[in-house]
């Protein structure tokens, strides 16, 4: 109630101020965001304090639902801002002409973070916080199961991690999609998929929301999760016994904010963008419940000890250059491949991987050339891909997913084809692995 009175008073003031000074931001500004209350509340408080007369109305939706909402309601738009992590969501909005171009006045923000450009080149959206991808783990779980601390993607493929790893499906989680794409770009198409499938053989679960992974790791249901860094940092901030590491092949990308085209309160929307890019707004990111990496390097002076700094820490300088266009051209194909080859075939993949782990254990005690060769054949069968890198970005395959004019295979047909391909290969690999095990013993 108190807040309502406050809001009303604020609105009253805003109206007064609005009539007096036409340019000053005032009134209600509505933001659609995928960020949790722990992120939005501190920003709301700081912004409303810094800009008297403006109320920030937060509409919480997951990224996909948010994009869908803005799209469905564009005829009578009531939303001023879109605020979320995944850059591809902003690309979609921009592609549909739903974002308003704007020139930010913020000072001291460099061109790039890591090797990723912070702002959209056309000024449709702005990076305000950087995030990198990596591995988080639950210390109690790791100790109880006598696991080593994972350091790199390839660690997760080791036998000791079998059934201990969790990931979100890239088709549902924009950040996981970028993780997968980073591995593919960093290691190359074939080698990258091999790494991903070897890790996947150790997956305990593939969740359907990004937050499902940190949730499972926080509560100790699984030991290790492939996540975006702030999930781990904010969990640490909340007191959970978790740790995080950036692998060698990874990248940092910015989380963004953009003004919706035709915004009902454009002045206030611009004020919000200016605020979160200002030093005061950037400092809010350091709060223990948020823990994201500011894009203004000067702000790190106020960060607690041990806070990762992508502008100075050497590990970030080695990170790969992420090619947004290459990623965008094959988004649907990569996500669908992951689902059809891994998510929906997980039982078969885990089964053969387990056998291969056993073979490795036996071979470590007593080497056997024939068994080793058979196991290598099995691994090649698993790694085989139904689609080459060139095909993945081809017009024909893209048309199947976007509904292009040329008549190729339908999406459902492709999916069934790929699923059949994987199922058959995994079964053949299982036969080889069994044979290898017999030979080794």
């Amino acid at each position, binding site marked *: 109630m108190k*807040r*309502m009175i406050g809001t009303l008073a604020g609105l009253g003031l805003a109206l007064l101020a609005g009539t007096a000074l036409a340019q000053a931001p005032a009134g209600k500004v509505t933001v659609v965001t995928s*960020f*949790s*209350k*722990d*992120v939005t509340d501190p920003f709301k408080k700081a912004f409303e304090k810094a800009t008297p007369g403006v109320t920030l*109305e937060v*509409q*919480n*939706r997951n990224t*996909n*639902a948010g994009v*869908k*909402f803005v799209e*469905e*309601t564009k*005829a*009578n738009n009531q939303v001023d801002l879109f605020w979320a992590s995944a850059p591809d969501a902003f690309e979609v909005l921009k592609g549909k002409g739903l974002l308003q171009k704007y020139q930010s006045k913020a000072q001291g923000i460099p061109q790039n973070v890591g090797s990723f450009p912070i702002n959209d080149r056309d000024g449709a959206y702005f990076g305000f916080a950087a995030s990198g991808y990596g591995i988080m783990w*639950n210390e*109690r*779980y790791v100790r*109880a199961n006598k696991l080593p601390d994972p350091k790199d993607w390839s660690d997760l493929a080791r036998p000791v991690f079998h059934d201990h790893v969790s990931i979100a*499906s890239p*088709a*549902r989680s924009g950040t996981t999609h970028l993780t997968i794409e980073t591995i593919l770009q960093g290691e190359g198409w074939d080698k990258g998929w091999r790494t991903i499938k070897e890790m996947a053989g150790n997956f*305990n679960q*593939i*969740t*359907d929301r990004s937050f499902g992974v*940190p*949730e*499972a790791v*926080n*509560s*100790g*249901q*699984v030991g290790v999760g492939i996540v975006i860094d702030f999930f781990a940092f*904010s969990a640490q901030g*909340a*007191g*959970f*016994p978790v740790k995080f590491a950036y692998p060698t092949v990874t990248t940092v990308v910015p989380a963004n904010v953009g003004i919706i085209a035709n915004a009902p309160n454009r002045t206030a929307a611009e004020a919000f963008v200016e605020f979160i890019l200002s030093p005061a707004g950037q400092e809010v990111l350091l709060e223990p*419940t948020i823990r994201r990496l500011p894009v203004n390097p000067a702000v790190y002076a106020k960060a607690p000890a041990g806070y990762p700094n992508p502008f100075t820490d050497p590990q970030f300088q080695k990170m790969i250059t992420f090619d947004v266009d290459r990623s965008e051209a094959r988004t649907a194909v990569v996500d669908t491949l992951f*689902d059809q080859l891994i*998510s*929906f075939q997980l039982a078969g993949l885990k089964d053969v991987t387990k056998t291969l782990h056993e073979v490795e254990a036996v071979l470590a005690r007593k080497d056997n050339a024939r068994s080793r060769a058979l196991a290598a054949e099995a691994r090649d069968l698993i790694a085989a891909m139904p689609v080459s890198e060139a095909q993945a970005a081809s017009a024909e395959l893209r*048309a199947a*997913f*976007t*509904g*292009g*004019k040329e008549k190729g295979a*339908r*999406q*459902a*047909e492709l*999916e*069934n084809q790929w*699923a059949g391909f994987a199922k058959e290969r995994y079964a053949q690999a299982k036969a080889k692995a069994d044979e290898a095990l017999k030979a080794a013993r």
Partner: protein
Amino acid sequence: MTAVALPALPAPRRRRLPTTPGQLALAAAIAVFLLAFLVLPVATVVYVAFTEKGTGAFTLVNFLDFARTDLFVRSFWNSVYVSGMSVVWASVLALPLATLTTRFEFRGAAVVQTLGFLPLIMPPFVGAVAMQLFFGRNGSVNLLLDDWFGFKIPFMEGLNGVIFVQSVHYFPFILINLVAALRNIDSAMEEAAQNLGSSGFRLFRRIVFPLAMPGYLAGASLVFVKVFDDLATPLLLNVKDMLAPQAYLRVTSIGIADPMGYVISVVLIVASVFAMWLSALALRGRDYATTQRGGGGLARRKLKGWEKIAAYGAVGLILALVLAPHLGLLLLSFATIWSFSPLPDAYTIAHYSRVFGESSLYIKNTLIYATLAGLIDVVLGVAIAYLVLRTKLVGRQWLDWAATAALAIPGVVLGIGYLRAFYGVTLPDGTPLAALWITVVLALAIRRLPYALRACMAAMQQISVSLEEAAENLGATKARTVRRIVVPLMTGGILAGFVTSFATAAVELSATLMLVQSNSDAPLAYGLYVFMQSPAGRGAGAALGVIAVLIVAASTLLSNMLAERNSANQGRKT
């Protein structure tokens, strides 16, 4: 879907009263309501199933693709299997609770019935987390088992995990409808059987249970369809090869432009309506009505000493199992950190103080929305039940089927449909119609209508039409007969329907999430969702969840007590 355009159905066996213009108007009004708020919005989304991607031309090839895709076919049979098994296990849980509390003198019957109802109101997300913390692979139970005996039980893995969680979650549908039905059985029937020498289990099997069949089937068919269409539980357990999750995964990701997600939705709708039709078929040609009323239901037998121990033991065991998630939720709401340990590290009340300020607004909204939705549902439910069972209107069954189909429509699809259908419609001041909170109420009412409808149908099937004929012979008009005879006799069923709709509407999220436009219009479930997206919000979310459960439980207890008093009053009058 309108009443006029459809061919006549086979002539019913049941005696029916002739149609009046009033009934016709009523049917038309309901048809218009369902068209406007269910059929049209859903059609704006689902028509994609029948179009070719890219060109938008009409085609049925997508359904052929469905039948040819291994994953979809496998998913379909998995869904059928899981739904069937869930009905079996839900019955195992519900039957003892229902019989013991209605047929015997059982202290605390109302409390048991209320507690037995709680699993239905598991708030989204946080309920799942609590359940994992208890029964998950490293939940309390398994950590202790592993510690003491060195093994674990995969409660929550694979299809069996889904069956376990679904039976615990949805068995109240059977419980609540069966209890209502058992209360309605005339004790004269039982006495007659006893005079003829029947007793014990034989009496139950041959007389009591068959007479309560409409209630049981109403519940069982709801469980079947609900499990068939539920996506939250399989997704929580990371089971993807079932039909509802497949539809959801496609509609919310790369498949959004692809027809297959909508094809699956159509398959879900058709399968659900088919299941309902089957359960109606099972009742066809039999008469469950009894004329004598006001006996206060079945005679209650006293339990003997050892029987009492066994009965309380069984009830206690079942309640402990089905309420474990709620206990987990309660612990979580007081926990500081709970990670890989049987119990939380320490306890705090900080989460409650954090949500205290905001929750009053959420609670108020939830109560308003859920009550309105529940009321709309019972009014529609009684009306549709009356039209279907008591009139000869052509195509009246379609009202039932259309309302039932709502069960199979994913919340996201309904949400998007509402935005498409109503966002363009603006009020004089420019606010879109879809931005008003009443839209949320309508969406909730449509989504929960099948629950109330099944309960009302079952209640009406137990009323003998001769009572109405008697009233009309004595000069009462149709409307007066309904008001003074039918509705009072259905009270139990109507209450059961209201409570089910109300309680489940209070914790619904998927459509709400699409439609809520501002924090001041948001219900509890939305607030909960907002909290549950961050590690620090877990405890606060659990605290909101506990508040939601308490409110709904209090409302349920209240209506159970009203029902008890009501039947007691009736008993005294005779």
